[in-house]
């Protein structure tokens, strides 16, 4: 499978979850494990560009496919513009869920560049932030959309 643009060859058993293989065999640790039953969203990856919960996907299903995690959002050592705004707005407390929120927010903004607050709430409804920083996360996404719109208008 291709993980963050790099072809990775791993040996797996049929019953292994994509979550475990990404973390333990590929070594990408931004994908976290928590509920293991599709409720918390913390294990989100983009599979062929779409967000899925990797605790409910078999690793073998990802054979030959494209997997992206938060590491793919910006070159190593740098932050994507959305990640920067997450930091500026304090859209995290412990940070454990942040990679998953950022990943889903990136996907949402790629299909809906100017979402309303309720659209953001709806789209993030499969994610849990145990520190309760939802307000700041939503503000960060709205701020990104606003800046992006202004940037586009200024560029015209």
């Amino acid at each position, binding site marked *: 499978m291709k993980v963050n643009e790099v072809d990775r060859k791993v040996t797996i*058993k049929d019953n292994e979850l994509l979550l475990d293989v990404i973390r333990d065999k590929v070594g990408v640790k931004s994908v976290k494990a928590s509920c293991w039953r*599709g409720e918390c969203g913390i294990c989100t990856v983009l599979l062929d560009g*779409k967000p899925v919960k990797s605790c409910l996907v078999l690793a073998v299903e990802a054979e030959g496919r494209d997997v992206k995690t938060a590491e793919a959002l910006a070159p190593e050592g740098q932050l994507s513009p959305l990640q920067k705004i997450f930091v500026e707005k304090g859209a995290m407390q412990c940070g454990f869920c942040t990679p998953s929120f950022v990943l889903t927010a990136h996907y949402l903004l790629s299909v809906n560049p100017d979402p309303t607050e309720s659209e953001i709430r709806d789209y993030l409804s499969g994610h849990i932030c145990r520190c309760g920083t939802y307000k700041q996360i939503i503000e960060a996404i709205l701020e990104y959309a606003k800046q992006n719109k202004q940037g586009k208008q200024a560029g015209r």
Partner: protein
Amino acid sequence: MSFGSSYLTLPDFEYVKPKSLQEALQFIDQHKDEAEILAGGVGLFAFMKERLVEPRWVVDIKAIKELQTLRDDGSKGLSIGAAVNMNQLLDFAPIKDKYKALHDCISLLSDPLLRNRSTIIGDICEALPYVDGPTPLLIFDTEVEAASVKGTRRIPMNEFIRGVAENALEPNELAAAIHLKPPPENSKSLFLKHTSSSEFSIVNVAALCANPSRPEARTMKFAYGAIGPIPKRVHEVDGIFKRKAPVPRLIDEAIDSIKKSAEPMTDVLAKAEYRSHMLEVLAVRAFRRLLGS
């Protein structure tokens, strides 16, 4: 990583990914109950992690072209294949335009990420009481296309669910598609549900009304689910609204026949009395919205 708890891992099985429907049908004909179908996996993997299901084979049907059908044939109706996920259904314009009760239902199911995997056919095959999918399908007179090596047969939705986690499929059959009948001209439909704090439905209703403002031509279809093991279409309601009488009186009559047909259950999610009460609340709400009163 393993913490030793069963629900973190899946039991051992062998994964197969047939490329054609024929290949899949031959496989399940050979292995029957030892094979489980993988479409979205949202239900299957949850049950497998709990060791409630331990198949020898997991048959992934997502690569099968014939099961990826999503087609609106106008007056012939709508066909949905077993490998089509919920978000594909939400993005399909004819469903939003004409099969609104189904669209409402799916948009309230789980969350957008799980909907990239879960399927409506997986939902109905699971046949658990709190599953929402069957209820809107009942008001569109849906048929389930069951395929086996011997051919296909169509099972009406109202005969498909037989009990808790029990559907009408034979061990060598696969639910390949569902077929919805088109709603009549000048009709509206909707879906409403009431959930427990764990987000499982304890009551859901779907209704479809044609010609709401012309009593002589008005028709209504009504179904409910989640209050007992089997979702039901209440046929007694069909004709009640086709009369010139004050709408509140018609609604009262409809509620009477709905409550007569209902056998609400008590379980860990809610008591029978509460389900019965909420069924009435949702039904009244649905009728009022559709009739604009």
